[in-house]
């Protein structure tokens, strides 16, 4: 109880401080902070259209954030979400093209499974390199991003290319009948629901299961985990696998709900934005949901800031950066306020 109160108070405090700093920044650009905040609100949450805009942008972040959050629970800083997203989208497209005449339900299921397994394996390699060869997981996962993007470009320009896509090299389409539609009357696709379900399931796994407890022990002190006989290698690699699978699923959804075929547009930065969300949520899968919405909202409003206030696109990056820095700095406040600590039993 006190722990939850501590988390809430510090997070809210950090958000307030970042709002203040953002206001100072906006004032320094010669704009009125009040008007800009109103535009932010209007563009992100001010109407049903804006809400849909925000949710659509948050949907992939829910899954790519898990890619950093899950390995973080075993103590690994993995930033390979972008690569896993691309590998997932690419493998899902290949699977989808191969069986595009099967019933759509089968096609979509196979696409997502293939994406999950391929992208999961992609990042499991990072866990294995870390565990068996002591290779720094942050660097190896970052480099794998570049390899994934190069692989995508190579295949899309080469063997997988649909010859009809003259000036925008792309693969063959998976077929309109195999596309995921929108939820009801809205413009938000079902990927949002996949993301929400995945975050909830991962929260249950992390907080309510034996595996989650074992992962927390491994992340807390790997020697202690070994000492008590936990299968540390399996735990590390499975956590990386789950993270990769989540990002891969996001890639498959990007193909099945938006693009319809793989091309260079698959590499749109969702993987990197996911890192930010995971850190903001302090690697708690359930907390990813509000932070993904917050970031999706800022991005949704970014366009309006450009159009209504003549601010450059970099403004959004600065706002995100300020929030990120303040929330990360607030980490050191945990345990500093006696008020939140449990009373010592004498």
């Amino acid at each position, binding site marked *: 109880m006190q722990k939850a109160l501590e988390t809430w108070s510090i997070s809210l405090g950090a958000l307030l401080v970042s709002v203040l700093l953002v206001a100072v920044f906006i004032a320094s650009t010669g704009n009125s902070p009040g008007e800009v905040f109103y535009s932010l609100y209007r563009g992100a949450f001010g109407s049903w259209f804006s809400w849909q805009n925000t949710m659509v942008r948050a949907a992939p972040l829910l899954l790519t954030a898990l890619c950093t959050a899950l390995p973080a629970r075993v103590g690994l800083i993995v930033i390979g979400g972008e690569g896993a997203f691309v590998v997932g989208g690419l493998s899902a497209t290949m699977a989808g093209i191969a069986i595009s005449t099967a019933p759509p339900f089968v096609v979509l299921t196979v696409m997502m499974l293939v994406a999950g397994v391929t992208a999961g394996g992609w990042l499991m390699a990072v866990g294995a390199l870390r565990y068996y060869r002591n290779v720094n997981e942050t660097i190896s996962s970052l480099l794998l991003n570049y390899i994934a993007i190069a692989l995508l*470009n190579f295949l899309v320009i080469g063997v997988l290319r649909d010859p009809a896509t003259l*000036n925008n090299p792309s693969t063959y389409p998976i077929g309109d009948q195999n596309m995921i539609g929108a939820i009801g009357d809205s413009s938000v696709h079902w990927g949002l629901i996949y993301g929400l379900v995945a975050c909830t399931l991962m929260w249950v796994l992390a907080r309510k299961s034996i595996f989650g407890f074992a992962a927390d022990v491994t992340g807390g002190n790997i020697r202690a985990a070994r000492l008590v006989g936990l299968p540390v290698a399996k735990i590390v690699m499975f956590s990386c696998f789950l993270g990769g699978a989540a990002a891969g699923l996001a890639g498959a959804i990007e193909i099945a709900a*938006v693009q*319809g075929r793989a091309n*260079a547009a698959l590499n*749109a*930065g969702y993987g990197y934005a996911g890192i930010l969300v995971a850190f903001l949520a302090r690697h708690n899968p359930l907390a990813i949901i509000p932070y993904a919405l917050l970031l999706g909202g800022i991005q949704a409003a970014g366009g309006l800031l450009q159009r209504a206030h003549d601010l450059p696109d970099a403004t959004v990056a600065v706002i995100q950066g300020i929030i990120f820095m303040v929330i990360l700095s607030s980490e050191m406040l945990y345990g500093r306020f006696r008020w939140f600590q449990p009373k010592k039993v004498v």
Partner: protein
Amino acid sequence: MTEDKKALTANRRRFLKGLSAGTAGMAFASQMPSALAADKVSMGFIYVGPRDDYGYNQAHFEGKSALAALDWVKAVDEENVPESLEVQKTMESMINLDGVQVVFPTSFGYFDPHILKLAGEYPEVQFLHCGGLWDATKHPKNVGSYFGYIDEPVYISGIVAGHTSKSKKLGFVAAMPIPQVLRNINNFTLAARSVDPSITTTVVFTGSWSDPVKEAEAASSLIDQGVDVLTCHVDSPKVVVETAERRGIYSCGYHTNNAVLAPKGFLTGAEWAWSGLYKHYAELISGGKPIPNLMRGGLKDGIVAVSPYGAAVGEAAKVAADGVMKKFMDGSMVVYEGPIMSNTGTEVVPAGKSYPQTDVWLESMDWLVEGVVGSTQA
């Protein structure tokens, strides 16, 4: 959802937003719906990269900025919009929150599926895409395409480069081996070799429209190989032109006037001149006239232009380039006139055969002409 129902919901949505019923119900079936002669023409521009890249995006931004001179036009824009759902949401946001009547999503990859999807949902809005992809048999009537024969000013660059080069080696940094890019490389090379047939162009593909690190590496390695005039076809020419200047060789610009990037070595360059076309569109809309679904033109239509010659360009080069320019302006210039050999030794254009600029056969080009060092297999 059927097409009709889609149109209906979109209209209802706009109606509820408090727009006039007249605008909401407006949708011609036969030709592109042109907006009412409202008090202000409202236009929205979307770029895939930054407004100040000295390149593709800046060219469109300069076109949009020229509209500021017309007080009856309201133009909004947004930069760095990826070719994903984000561009769909940006278009919708411009339509719903800014009330734009016509959207100009300028990146090639915005067309399919993003523009096509929204065009169905907003039949009363016009979507004009830069790239020339519109096809009457496949695409909605409220979508259109515009593009320019940028390879014409590239040909002029090639003439000037051919006259200026001393090493007889030209360099070309290119994004990917797609028809548009191959055509620029071929035009540049054909022009230079028309000056001196011993000239070669070495091409390096970076595999990406925007990868400054690889562009710098490619430029440096070309210069190390003895190239003394460099040009490029990537989204931003900044890195290539600046690298050429720093290493003391000549350069030809692309997309915008790059003279400021290379005060010493800049020769000339191929530029887009969108301001005229964008003003033309604004006039059509305000006059309530139908907008043609396809707009295309070259130097003589004022859609593309040649950058003013730099200080390093000699008299002979100027005379030769002006001569070719004159032929482009009177329409007598034909670049692809046989016999033309490819750099793999096959005859691509037989003797006696010629393809004028407007020939669609040129738009599926997958070969490089003799004299180009490089392969279409990136």
